[in-house]
């Protein structure tokens, strides 16, 4: 087929992000300038975000490799917003970095482009390409503060385990191809025969690979170490963009492909979801490091989100959309606070819980932000997290999946314990502990403004969610499959 202008318009966000990456690269080659690089990156990402309005006019539209429908637009918007937040946080984090700071944004842009490809892919080739383009720059980002032992360890750990997951992915694809002779998702769906053991094995292996990216139990072991070791902005990116893209493609696979709708795989998904909710929450209980705690919390949240994969009809797409939005906004704000409080020259990031003891009495507004995010992660009313949890429970009740509903309730009850622990630490009287503090003017800097804005958004979505729900509904209605 030939590419028409319409197709190019549909791919505009991707093109813009890639162009920005090239511009940043050339800029670095010419002259290093941190602020200018950040500015170019931010402008590029904003343009891409604006171009979505144009893209919306031409959807749904397909090429053999990519599909641009409501789901793609939704994922792209979330990825771009997260990447923007990471860029701004990166600026605050790397401001006084003595080494080369500019390449971070190059890696970030490439990774974001990978995420966008992954979310739009409807062919196993683009799926693989997108996943690798998403992951490769992430190794570099995680090991960016390589003079820190932990950062380097995080990068290498993620690299090696990711490579293993990729091997699974390729093997799974090969098995599917051997059985159906097709690589596009629609072709896989049509050429697929029920109770074909090899195809089932292939689907299972792909599930393993994507489950690794989503850190679903039992493929979650890397998550806490990597989150803890990686620099703040990179961990933020890993917790937001990487997970959004991987989840969207998994949703696409489950909705479109019958290989993922068989009885056996459904049951597997139920068991995995239950295990993820419970194990994630249980392991978070004893953590004394906020980044590790958030890693486990993120594991648990994707356990809840997997309910949408299991049900996969009715409210499922809408639920997945709403939950992803609420989760991403919350998690960006939470990591944002950690990043604002950290900087790579004071040693490792300020992540130990005792760093936060009595923060309220020094930085009331920053503490308010962190409190709101903890409440939101716990799903308490007045925050976005409550709307997300409401949707997930509603989905479970509607589909009468009582085991999953029970899992959500038990998981949430366990989860409360550690969210409350973090919250109360913030308000306790300060002991003579080593201080980690934000710069005094954090509130007027870009990073601080983003963090405050995200916190307000969490509250706004919690109190007045109707526009978000409408938006997700419209997008879900125009998605293919």
């Amino acid at each position, binding site marked *: 087929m030939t590419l028409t202008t319409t197709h190019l318009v549909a791919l505009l966000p991707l093109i813009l992000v890639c162009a920005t990456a090239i511009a940043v690269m050339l800029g670095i080659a010419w002259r290093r300038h941190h602020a200018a690089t950040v500015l170019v990156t931010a402008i590029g990402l904003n343009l891409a975000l604006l171009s979505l309005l144009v893209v919306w006019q031409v959807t749904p539209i397909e090429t053999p490799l990519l599909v641009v429908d409501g789901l793609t637009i939704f994922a792209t918007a979330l990825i771009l917003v997260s990447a923007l937040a990471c860029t701004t946080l990166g600026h605050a984090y790397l401001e006084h970095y003595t080494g080369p700071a500019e390449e971070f944004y190059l890696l970030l842009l490439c990774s974001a482009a990978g995420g966008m490809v992954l979310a739009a892919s409807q062919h196993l080739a683009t799926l693989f390409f997108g996943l690798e383009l998403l992951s490769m720059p992430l190794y570099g980002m995680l090991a960016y503060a390589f003079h820190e032992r932990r950062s380097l360890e995080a990068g290498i750990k993620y690299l090696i385990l990711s490579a293993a997951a990729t091997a699974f992915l390729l093997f799974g694809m090969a098995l599917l191809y051997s059985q159906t002779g097709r690589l596009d998702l629609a072709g896989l769906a049509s050429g697929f025969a029920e109770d074909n053991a090899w195809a089932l094995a292939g689907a299972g292996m792909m599930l393993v690979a994507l489950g690794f990216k989503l850190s679903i139990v039992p493929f979650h072991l890397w998550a806490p170490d990597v989150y803890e070791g990686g620099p703040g902005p990179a961990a933020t990116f890993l917790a937001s963009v990487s997970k959004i893209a991987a989840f969207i493609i998994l949703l696409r696979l489950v909705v479109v492909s019958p290989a993922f709708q068989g009885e056996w795989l459904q049951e597997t998904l139920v068991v995995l979801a239950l295990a993820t909710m419970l194990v994630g929450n249980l392991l978070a209980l004893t953590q004394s490091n906020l980044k590790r705690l958030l890693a486990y919390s993120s594991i648990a949240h994707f356990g809840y989100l997997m309910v949408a994969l299991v049900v996969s009809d009715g409210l499922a797409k809408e639920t997945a959309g709403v939950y992803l939005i609420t989760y991403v906004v919350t998690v960006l704000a939470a990591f944002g606070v950690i990043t604002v409080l950290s900087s790579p020259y004071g040693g490792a990031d300020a992540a130990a819980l005792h760093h936060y003891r009595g923060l309220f009495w020094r930085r009331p507004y920053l503490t308010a932000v962190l409190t709101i995010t903890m*409440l939101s992660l716990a799903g*308490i*009313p*007045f925050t976005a997290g*409550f709307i997300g949890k*409401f949707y997930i*429970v*509603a989905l479970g*009740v*509607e589909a009468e999946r009582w085991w999953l*509903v029970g899992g*959500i*309730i*038990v998981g*949430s*009850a366990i989860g*409360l*314990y550690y969210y*409350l*622990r973090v919250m*109360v630490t913030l*308000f*306790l009287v300060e002991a003579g502990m080593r201080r980690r503090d934000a710069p005094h003017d954090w509130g007027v800097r870009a990073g601080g403004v983003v963090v405050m804005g995200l916190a307000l958004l969490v509250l706004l979505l919690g109190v*007045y*969610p*109707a526009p978000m*729900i*409408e938006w997700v*509904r419209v997008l879900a209605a125009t998605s293919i499959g």
Partner: protein
Amino acid sequence: MTLVWLILIPFIGGLLCWQTERMGTMLPRWIALGTMLLELAMTLGLWLYGDFRLPEAGGGASQWAMEWRVAWIPRFGIDVHLALDGLSLVLIALTGFLGMLAVVCSWKEIVGRVGFFHLNLLWILGGVVGVFLAIDLFLFFFFWEMMLVPMYFLIALWGHSGSKGNTRIGAATKFFIYTQASGLLMLVAILGLVFAHHAATGEYSFSYDDLRNTPLSDEMAMWLMLGFFIAFAVKLPVVPLHGWLPDAHAQAPTAGSVDLAGILLKTAAYGMLRFALPLFPEASQAFAPIAMGLGVLGIFYGAVLACGQQDIKRLIAYTSISHMGFVLIGIYAGTQLALQGVVMLMVAHAFSAAGLFILSGQIYERLHTRDMTRMGGLWGRLGSLPGFSLCFVAASLGMPGTANFIGEFMVLFGTFPVAPVVVAVSSVGLVLAAIYSLFLMQRVHYGPAQGEEPLAGLDRREYTMMLGLLALVLLFGLYPQPLLETTGAAMSEIQRLFADPALTSTTLPMRAS
């Protein structure tokens, strides 16, 4: 709009308190006091000018005295739907009054972070008012969960750490997890009801009036009713689910205990009256014997354990469990008399428990202990405090002349035609009430004195507070009619909804025995 303001005033007042802390520690206290005074004045104004008499039989007219409604999340038919009837009015007035008391009684007790303390205190009250006004189930749940957060902070940050691992943070966390987890069960039940309604009519609605007519199979109704019941039972508390209450009370600051015992427990009873019974009348009828059994268990369990306590606040906490047993029996008896008695008892218990908690707070300020083995012989050393203690203890054991007597009497009287055995058994609980009350008086105020020197008597603030409370206890004990008239219409509506199925088919097994 008046109803919206009733909810907003405490929230705005709380924010003001927080922000004015930098101008001195007294300003937040006065603002908080003013806020609650305004709340109370508005409620009393509504009471004076409103009409809460019985609507026409058959209920052609709306059952609400005031209503306010605006769409919120159209996707699921969720509205911000507030409504007021006699029951909510009485409970909101109670909230305003006890809110004032909570502010006044922490005047000297709370010295650190005054602004943030009053923010939390007022937000609890705002959430509670929201619970009493919301009749959209989503909105109700919203406030129900929301009010836990400031209560958590109140206990965790300003509470007392007890001995041997009984930390205030532990108690606060326990409180939060108990109520939140049971709240999620209620969310599941609400959603189950909504989807059943959706299946029957094709429309999503969280409105109380719509959902009341949802056709449900017996089994389904029972499960959903249990979801609601467990959430309310944890908060009331009903005995096997009461584990959080003694700890939370013992570690909470005085204002927190007053709010907990006076208002938060009442939200549970209100929830049963407003939602659990009218939404699932048949299932509630079928469940009534078990609920009453749990009520009787609670009466005895609370009373017996109260006798063995060393900590004065734990003792009062256990008496609360015992009193709430009567409330539970009255609610599930479902006769007009019993339901009216429940309201009366809720109000009376709020006054007497608040009085006792404030008194024990005042004793703590003077002796720096809540351990009763280190008290004794306080009569004569503490000015008028022991006298007030005697009055509130008498109220708590249900002495005629106090409001508690009216409440308990009406509950038992109203329950007798339905379940005579339950009444006979739980009357024994009244004897136990006398025993633990006398224990309390004996251990704290009589007996050998631990020292000779007189302690500081009540100052004018404390004296006024206690006198006001006592006056109300006696007023409602001697002339309960205004209260009963205000809630009469609401209670007869609940009684009608609850009793209808009983007339047609089911009869209580108790009646046969």
